[in-house]
Structures are given as structure tokens and as C-alpha cells.
């Protein structure tokens, strides 16, 4: 079988919405849907993540310590976005990116995350269920970078728990681009 080129590989495994910069600008200021996370905060997902980062913080592993310090096992802050990721298959829902940055029509056929700022207001505990709503803040003009030509997208997402209490606010910058020919 002929080896497929990089171009053919790009669109295939990760579908994006295509359009012009002018199409994209119409979405600036628009809010995405409010999504309730598929994943509730579980100790199992916390342990798997801590095995990735090799983090032995007892707030994530030791119930006695965590009960005393926080009132229960807490989630590592870096897992915030993971609770809100879509399942790869669902009996009713079509697989689509939950985040507005991935649904903006632009010419670029791939993406990379470039900067993130997160303010944390409260901890997440086992059993909590996160909801997230994001908003497209800004799209840059076309930029030519080391990786390729494209646009930087700035989004802001608010994460709340099941009691509608603010957990975190995240501002993210992502580069949507085409590699240099």
C-alpha cells in the first residue's frame, strides 16, 4: 500500500471546520454550548494522571491526609480540562469537539496549543461533575511562524461544579495553521 503523504494524514484523523478568516471573525464574542462533563471526578482517573506526572502529592493519594487538609481527596488542577473531554463513542451523541476553538471555520488543517492561563477558585473533589462554557475572544490576522501559516485563537472557558460554583477560568491560545509547503 502506498504510504500516504502528510497532507492526506492531516484532515483524516482529526476533523476541523474549514472556512475563511472572514467566516471565523463572525464567531468572535460567541459563546459555545454549556457542556456537562461525561467524566465525574474519580480517584481512578486522578491516579492514572498522577502516574503520568509521577506526582506523589498525598492530597491525591492519601485519604487520611486529604481529609484533614482539604476535606477529601482533591483532583490535580492539571486534570481540569480532561473531565470535559468527549467520549470517543457514545450511543446517542455524535463525536464532536466540545470546545469552540476546534469548531471555528479557518483554512488551517491542524492545530497546536501555544499558551494557557488558568485561575483556580476552588478544589474539585471525588464525585464532582464539572460543566464548562467557553467563548471565542479573539482571532489574530494571518501569521507566518516556524511551524506554518495560520491564525491564533484566544478562548476563555469557565468551569463550574455541580453546585454551579466557579471552579476555574482558563484563557487559552491555540494556533490553527497549515505547514509550510
Amino acid at each position, binding site marked *: 500500500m502506498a504510504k500516504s503523504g502528510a497532507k492526506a494524514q492531516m484532515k483524516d484523523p*482529526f476533523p476541523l471546520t474549514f472556512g475563511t478568516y472572514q467566516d471565523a471573525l463572525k464567531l468572535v464574542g460567541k459563546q459555545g454550548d454549556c457542556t456537562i462533563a461525561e467524566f465525574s471526578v474519580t480517584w481512578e482517573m486522578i491516579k492514572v494522571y498522577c502516574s503520568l506526572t509521577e506526582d506523589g502529592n498525598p492530597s491525591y493519594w492519601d485519604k487520611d491526609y486529604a481529609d484533614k487538609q482539604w476535606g477529601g481527596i482533591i483532583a490535580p488542577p492539571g486534570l481540569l480540562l480532561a473531565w470535559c473531554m468527549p467520549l470517543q463513542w457514545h450511543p446517542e451523541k455524535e463525536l464532536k469537539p466540545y470546545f469552540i476553538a476546534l469548531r471555528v471555520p479557518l483554512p488551517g488543517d491542524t492545530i497546536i496549543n501555544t499558551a494557557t492561563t488558568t485561575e483556580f477558585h476552588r478544589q474539585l473533589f471525588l464525585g464532582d461533575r464539572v460543566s464548562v462554557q467557553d467563548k471565542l475572544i479573539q482571532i489574530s490576522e494571518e501569521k507566518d511562524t516556524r*511551524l506554518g501559516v495560520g491564525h491564533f485563537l484566544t478562548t476563555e472557558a469557565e468551569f463550574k461544579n455541580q453546585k454551579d460554583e466557579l471552579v476555574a477560568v482558563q484563557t487559552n491560545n491555540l494556533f490553527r495553521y497549515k505547514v509550510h509547503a
Partner: protein
Amino acid sequence: MTLNYSSKYWDDISEGDKLSKTSMHVPFEKVILDAAATQDYFPGHHNPEYARGQGQRDVYLNTMAIEGFIDRLATDWAGPHAFIRQRKMQMRASIYAGDTMSGEGQVEKCYEDEAGRALVDISLTISTHEGPRVPASLTLEIPRKPA
């Protein structure tokens, strides 16, 4: 469970204090674990051919893995009682399968905010053998020494 840890109080921290340098090897399997652990199946994190088509050298860690490493550097140093209030980071270059990432940091500022919270600002840099990859800064809320 008896995990070893030590905790610093806010009163014991001074501007210029250094965080201990920490390294972690990132074999291919860890990048795959990253995709699974964070439910992030973007192909740049598990498909080397896709990653190369993006202009990358190989599959690379996602933002959440690097965030976790940054946070760990801070809480390994300050202790598990530290609450991360803010994290800023820039992914100036990727961390690839096969790399060893290492992090260094120092205290930039110790202060109280208007709500009376005891805060410490830290600057950090995550590097590989290719040089600095991810500059970051954190604001930690750290308990005061009991009277």
C-alpha cells in the same frame, strides 16, 4: 498510606528561594499514557506520522501533562498544603517522545492580597536537551505558620 513529604509555611519562604531541579524521562509509552490519562486523542499525541505532518519531530506531550509536571514541581517544593491559585504557561516548543524534561524555578514574590491571603509567585522553566521549552509562572496560596 505513608507518603514522604515536607511542607513549607509562607513565613519561611523568601524571594529568590530556589525550587529543587526535577527531571522526568518521557518515553513513547508515556506520551501514549498522556493521551489516555487526559482523554486527549488529538493525533499529534499518539500518531508519529501525523505529528511529523504538523512540522513536529515526533509525538509530543499535551498541555495537561506539562501542567501536571509544573504543578508537581511547585507542590513537591512548597508541600501538599499549597493551593495553586494561578498558572500561566507558554508552549514555545514541544516535548517529544524520547526527551527528558526538567524543571527549575525560583520565588519571585511573597505577598498578601487584599483578601489577606498569603501568596507566593514562582517562575519556572521546563527544558529538554534542546533548551527551554515552556516558561511558566504560578501563584501559590501557602498556609502561614501556626501561632
